[in-house]
C-alpha cells in the first residue's frame, strides 16, 4: 500500500556496507582504539588465570612449595584487578564514542531529510524515515560500541590462542585449526541469509511505524466513521507479518548459534583424545595437557559469540544500507555551485516564462507553458478549477519543486540561480492547509524569521486578524498543539497567514488564504491585507470573488496554462469560463425548489 521505494534485498550479503560508517567513526577513532585495546588487553588478562593455574599445578603443587605460591597468587590478583579495570575503561571509552556516533549519525540523517526535496517526502512513507532515524541508527550504535570491537577482539583472541595452542603442542593445535574450516563455510552461508532477513524485518518495522502514524494522525476520521476495527486489522496484518519475518530471522540465528556452540565442544573431545594419545606416547606432559585444555576453554566464549557477532554485523550492514538510501538520495532542489546572493528590489518582479511542470512519475504535465508577469507591487489572483494546478504553480515560486520546463525569475534572476536561503526569505507562502507546530504561538509565527521584533509580530497578527492569541492563557507564549488542533480551523488559518505576512516579504504567495473564515472576519482580513499587498508582489490563489477582489489582475488557469488575464470585471464580462467559475449561485438557487 505504501509507496516508498523498497529495493529488493540483493544477496550480495556484503559487509562492505559497513564501510560507509567510517566517516562517522573517524572523529572518535582515538576512543575506539582505546575501547579496542582495553578489550584486547582484558582478554589477555583473562588468559593469565589459566596460565597461572597451570604454573601453580606444575610449580608449587608439584614441588610442595608453599612459599612459591605467594608471588603467583599476587600475580593472579594483579591480573584480576587489571581485567576489571580494563572492563571499566572499555565501557567508558565505548560510551564516549558510540553514543556520540549515534548522535552524529542521527543529526546527519535529520539534517539531510530536512533538505531533501518535497518530492522525496511525497513518495516516502514517514514511518520508514522514522524507523531509519531511530531503530537503524541505534543498531549502528550497538555495532560500533560492542559488536565491531568484539568481532575484532575475538578474532584476534582466536588467532592468538591458536598460535599458543600450536606452540604448546603443534599436532593438536593443527587439529583444532582444521576444525574451523567447515564452521566458516556453514557460517558464511547462513550469514548471507540473515542479512536478507534482517532487511525484511527492518522494512516491515518501518511499514508498521507508518501505519501507527497514519492511524494516530487520522484518528478523527477513524472515529467519525467508526472504523477502528478496519484500521486495527490493517495494523494487525502488518504486525503479524512482522512477527513471521522475525521468526524466520530467529530460526537462522538459532542455526548459526547452534553450530557455533557445537564446534568448541566437539573440538574439546578431539583435544581429549589427541591429548591422551600424546600423553601416552610421552609427547605431552599432563601439565601440558591441562594447559592446553585451559587455553582452549578460553576460546569457548569467543567462538560461541562469533556466530552472534557476525549475524549482528549483517544486521548492521542492512541498517547501513537503509540509512544510506536517505543520505544518498539526491538533493535535487539545492544551490547551484558558486551562487551568490543577487541584488533584488523590494517589491520584486516575478515572471513565469513558458513554465512547464509535471510531477515525477506522472506522464501528463500539470503546467504547460505558463507565462505570467507580475510587476513589482502588483497582486495577481490565480483562479482555476479544483485540481487545475494552482497550488502547484505557487509551490514553484519558492522552489518546493523545480520547474521541468521554462523558468521563473525574480527581478530577472532565475530562481534556480539564487541561493535557496535568499529566495525563501524573499518569498513567503501561506499554504492551503495551515501547518502549525507544537511550540509557542510566537515561534510558530516567526518560524523562518527568528529576528522578527515584537512590533513585526503584532503587525502580522493585526493583518491576519489573529489578535485572539492574546486571549490564550499565556498569550504569545502559549504552546499550541500539533497541527494547532486546539485552535479552531479559522484561527489556524489566520496564524498561517500571519506567518506569511510577517516582515512584509517582497514576494507573497497566498494559497486560498481565507477559505476557513466567516464573511465578517474575511472582510476585516481583506481590509488589512490590502495595505500589505500594496507594497509587495503577490500571487493569490482564490476560489471566491471576494478574494479575487484583492488583486489588481486575475489569471485564469486551465489545461495547464493561463488562458485569460485581465481585471476581474474584464474577465467576468469577456470570458465565459471565468464567469462559470466565479459567478453566482443564482442559477442553483433557481434550480432549487
Amino acid at each position: 500500500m505504501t509507496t516508498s521505494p523498497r529495493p529488493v534485498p540483493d544477496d550480495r550479503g556484503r559487509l562492505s556496507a559497513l564501510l560507509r560508517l567510517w566517516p562517522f567513526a573517524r572523529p572518535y577513532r582515538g576512543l575506539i582504539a582505546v575501547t579496542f585495546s582495553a578489550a584486547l588487553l582484558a582478554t589477555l588478562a583473562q588468559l593469565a588465570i589459566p596460565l597461572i593455574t597451570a604454573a601453580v599445578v606444575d610449580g608449587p603443587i608439584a614441588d610442595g612449595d608453599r612459599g612459591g605460591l605467594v608471588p603467583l597468587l599476587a600475580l593472579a590478583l594483579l591480573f584480576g584487578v587489571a581485567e576489571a579495570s580494563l572492563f571499566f575503561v572499555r565501557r567508558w571509552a565505548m560510551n564516549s564514542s558510540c553514543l556520540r556516533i549515534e548522535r552524529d549519525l542521527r543529526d546527519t540523517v535529520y539534517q539531510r531529510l530536512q533538505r531533501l526535496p518535497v518530492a522525496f517526502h511525497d513518495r516516502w512513507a514517514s514511518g520508514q524515515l522514522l524507523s531509519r532515524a531511530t531503530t537503524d541508527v541505534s543498531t549502528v550504535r550497538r555495532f560500533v560500541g560492542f559488536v565491531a570491537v568484539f568481532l575484532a577482539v575475538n578474532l584476534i583472541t582466536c588467532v592468538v590462542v591458536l598460535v599458543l595452542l600450536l606452540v604448546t603442542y603443534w599436532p593438536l593445535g593443527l587439529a583444532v585449526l582444521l576444525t574451523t574450516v567447515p564452521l566458516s563455510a556453514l557460517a558464511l552461508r547462513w550469514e548471507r541469509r540473515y542479512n536478507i532477513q534482517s532487511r525484511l524485518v527492518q522494512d516491515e518495522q518501518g511499514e508498521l511505524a507508518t501505519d501507527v502514524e497514519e492511524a494516530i494522525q487520522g484518528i478523527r476520521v477513524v472515529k467519525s466513521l467508526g472504523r477502528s476495527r478496519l484500521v486495527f486489522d490493517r495494523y494487525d496484518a502488518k504486525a503479524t507479518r512482522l512477527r513471521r519475518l522475525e521468526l524466520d530471522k530467529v530460526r537462522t540465528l538459532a542455526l548459526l548459534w547452534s553450530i557455533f556452540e557445537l564446534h568448541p565442544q566437539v573440538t574439546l573431545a578431539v583435544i581429549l583424545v589427541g591429548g591422551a594419545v600424546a600423553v601416552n606416547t610421552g609427547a605431552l606432559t599432563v601439565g601440558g595437557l591441562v594447559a592446553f585444555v585451559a587455553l582452549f576453554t578460553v576460546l569457548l566464549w569467543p567462538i560461541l559469540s562469533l556466530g552472534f557477532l557476525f549475524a549482528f554485523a549483517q544486521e548492521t550492514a542492512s541498517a547501513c544500507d537503509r540509512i544510506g538510501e536517505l543520505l544518498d538520495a539526491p538533493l535535487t532542489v539545492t544551490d547551484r555551485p558558486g551562487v551568490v546572493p543577487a541584488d533584488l528590489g523590494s517589491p520584486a518582479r516575478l515572471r513565469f516564462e513558458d513554465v512547464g511542470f509535471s510531477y515525477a512519475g506522472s506522464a501528463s504535465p500539470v503546467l504547460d507553458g505558463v507565462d505570467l508577469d507580475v510587476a513589482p507591487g502588483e497582486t495577481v489572483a490565480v483562479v482555476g478549477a479544483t485540481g487545475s494546478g494552482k497550488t502547484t504553480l505557487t509551490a514553484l515560486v519558492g522552489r518546493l519543486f523545480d520547474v521541468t520546463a521554462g523558468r521563473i525569475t525574480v527581478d530577472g534572476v532565475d530562481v534556480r540561480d539564487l541561493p535557496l536561503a535568499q529566495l525563501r526569505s524573499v518569498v513567503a507562502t501561506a499554504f492551503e492547509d495551515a501547518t502549525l507546530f507544537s511550540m509557542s504561538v510566537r515561534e510558530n509565527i516567526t518560524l523562518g524569521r527568528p529576528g522578527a521584533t515584537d512590533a513585526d509580530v503584532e503587525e502580522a497578527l493585526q493583518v491576519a486578524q489573529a489578535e485572539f492569541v492574546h486571549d490564550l492563557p499565556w498569550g504569545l507564549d502559549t504552546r499550541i498543539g500539533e497541527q494547532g488542533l486546539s485552535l479552531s480551523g479559522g484561527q489556524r488559518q489566520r496564524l498561517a497567514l500571519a506567518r506569511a505576512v510577517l516582515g512584509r516579504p517582497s514576494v507573497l504567495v497566498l494559497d486560498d488564504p481565507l477559505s476557513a473564515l466567516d464573511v465578517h472576519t474575511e472582510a476585516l482580513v481583506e481590509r488589512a491585507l490590502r495595505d500589505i499587498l500594496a507594497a509587495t508582489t503577490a500571487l493569490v490563489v482564490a476560489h471566491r470573488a471576494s478574494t479575487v477582489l484583492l488583486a489588481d489582475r486575475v489569471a485564469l488557469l486551465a489545461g495547464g496554462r493561463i488562458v485569460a488575464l485581465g481585471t476581474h470585471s474584464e474577465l467576468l464580462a469577456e470570458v465565459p469560463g471565468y464567469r462559470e467559475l466565479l459567478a453566482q449561485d443564482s442559477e442553483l438557487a433557481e434550480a432549487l425548489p
Partner: protein
Amino acid sequence: MTAQTPSPGHGTDGQENWRGVAAENADDLSAGAGVFLRARSRRLLGELLAPHRRSLWGLLFTITVQNLAWLAGPFLIGVGIDVAVPALIGGNAWPLVWITAAMLGAAVLDTVLRFVFLTWSGRVGQAVLLTLRRRVFTHVQRLPLSFHERYTSGKTISRLTSDVEALAELLDEGLDSLVTALFSVLTIGVVLIVLDPPLGLVALLGFPALFWVARWFHQNSTAAYRRTRESITAVIVQFTETLGGIRAVQAFRREPRNDELHAQLNEDNRRAQDRAFWLIAVFVPAVTLIGNLVTVAVLGYGALRVMDGDLAVGTLVSFLLYLRRFFDPLQDVAMFYNSYQSASAALEKLSGVLEERPTVAEPSDPLPLDDARGELVFDDVRFGYTDRTVLPHLDLAVPAGQTVALVGATGAGKSTLARLAARFYDPVAGVVRLDGVPLDRLTDDDLRRAVVMVTQESFLFSGTIADNIAFGRPGADRAEIEAAARAIGAHEFIASLPKGYDTDVHRRGGRLSAGQRQLVSFARAFLADPAVLILDEATSSLDVPSERLVQRGLQTLLADRTALIIAHRLSTVEIADRVLVMEEGRIVEDGFPAELVAGTGRFAGLHRAWADSLV
C-alpha cells in the same frame, strides 16, 4: 500530573522557550510516583507473560537440560585427565572412548536443545510483542480525542515504536541470557558445593558484595532509564513534526533552527543514555572484580589443600574452570538486569498509556438503536475543552430529516457543537440525544452507523482512492464506490487520473489537490450513508462549480436525512431548512433561511455582506 505554574520565562536559557507553555506536562513526575510506576510496569510484564506460563516452564526445562549438557564438557574433560589418561597409559583405552563418546553426546544434545530453546523463546517473545502491540494500538484507538490532543501523535508513535522495541530487546536477549545465566549460576553453584564444600564456601564469600553492587545499580538506573525513554520520545516528536510539516519547514527556512533544536534534543538523549551506560560501566566490572578476587582466593586455598593432600589436582582444575563459568554468566545477569531496567522504563510509559481511561467510552449497558431516524437533541449542554467554557448553555432540537445550517464567526464554537453531536467528546453537563437515546448509551457501532462527520481537515490514508472511499463502508464494491463519487461530482477527476480509482494518493493524500482531497473525503462519508450527516466546512476548498455539484448531490442525499452543515459560504444555506447563528458559544438566531434573510438580525447582516462579496 500537576498543573504547571504559568511562567512563560521558565527555562531561561532561551533555548527552551520555543516550546511555549502548556497547562500540563504528562511526563512530569511527582516524587514518590516512581515506586508506583515500577509496580505498574511489573504488573504489565506479568500480564503479558501470563499466557505463556507453560512455555516458560518448558523453556526452563529445556535450558536446564541444555546447561547440564553444556556443563558436562569441563566435567568430563576433568575426569578424562584424571581417569582416562592414566588408564590409557596403563593400556586401557576404553575409559577414553567412553568419555569421548559422552562428550560428543553431550555436545549434540546441547546443540539441539539450544536450537529448540532459541526458536521457542523467539516464538514466545514475538507472541508477547504482538500482544503488546495489539493491546496498545487498540487502546490508543479507543482513547478520546482529548487524550490525543494532549499527548500529541509523536509521543504515541514513540510509544508504539521505540518503547515496544525496548521490550523486544529484553525479550530477544533477556529471556535467553537470563535463563541461561541463572541456570548456569545455580547449577554451577550446586556443582561447586558438591565438588568440594570448603572451596564452595570460599566461592560464596563473594555474594554479599555482589548484592550490594546490584542494589546500588538498581537504585540509580531506574531514574536513568526513565530519562532515556523521555528524551528519545522528545527526539521522535520533533522528528515526526518536522517531516509532517516539511513544506512549511522548507518554505520558511526553518531548517537551521530545527537543526539546532534537534541537535539539542538528540544531545539530551545522548546524555541520558550516557548516564545509564555509565552505571552499567561500573556495575559489570565490579561483578568481574568480585569474581576475580574470589578466584584468587580459591586458587590459593585450593593449592594449599592439594599440597596437604586433601584435594585432587583434577578437582581443583575443574573447580577453577567452573568458577569461571560461574562468574561469566553473572555478568550476563548483570547485562540482563540492564536490559530489564531499560525495558521496564519503556513498560512504565506503555502502561501509562494503557491506564489512560477511555473517558468517552462505550456504555456497559447500551440501549439498542436499530434504525436511527436521526432526531438530534442537545439538552442543556455545557462544554469546554479545558477550564474555559466554549459552549455555556446549549438547547437545541433538530427533528429527523431536517437540514440545519450552522453559521457564525470563526471560533464561535460551531465545530465544537458538531463534535459533540458526533460524540468526539462528552458534554461537561447536560446530554445529547439521538432519537431520544443519550449518545453515551449507544454502542460505538450503532452511533457511528447513525452519525458521520466530515471534518475540517480531510485526512486521507495512503492507499488507493478506492480504498479511501471504501473506508466509509468496508466491503463496498467498485460500483458502489463509483456511485458515491459520481453523486458528489468526484468521478470525473478520478477517472481522468492515470490509474483512475486505483491511483495511490500517497501519504496523507499528497498526490491530490486540496479540493480533490475534500471530494474524496466527502465521497467517503456519502458511501457511509448515515442517518445524521455532519459537514464541517467540507467544501471550503472547492471551486464554485464543484461546490454546486456537491450540493446537488447533497440535495438528493439529504432528502430524508438529518444534516448539520457548517459553512462560511452561505450558498450552502440555500439547501438548508433551518439556519442557526452562533456567537461565542451561544445560538443567537434560529429560523427559516428566507425569514432570517428578510429580517434585520445578524444573519441578515451576514447574508448581505456575503451577497456583496460575490462578483
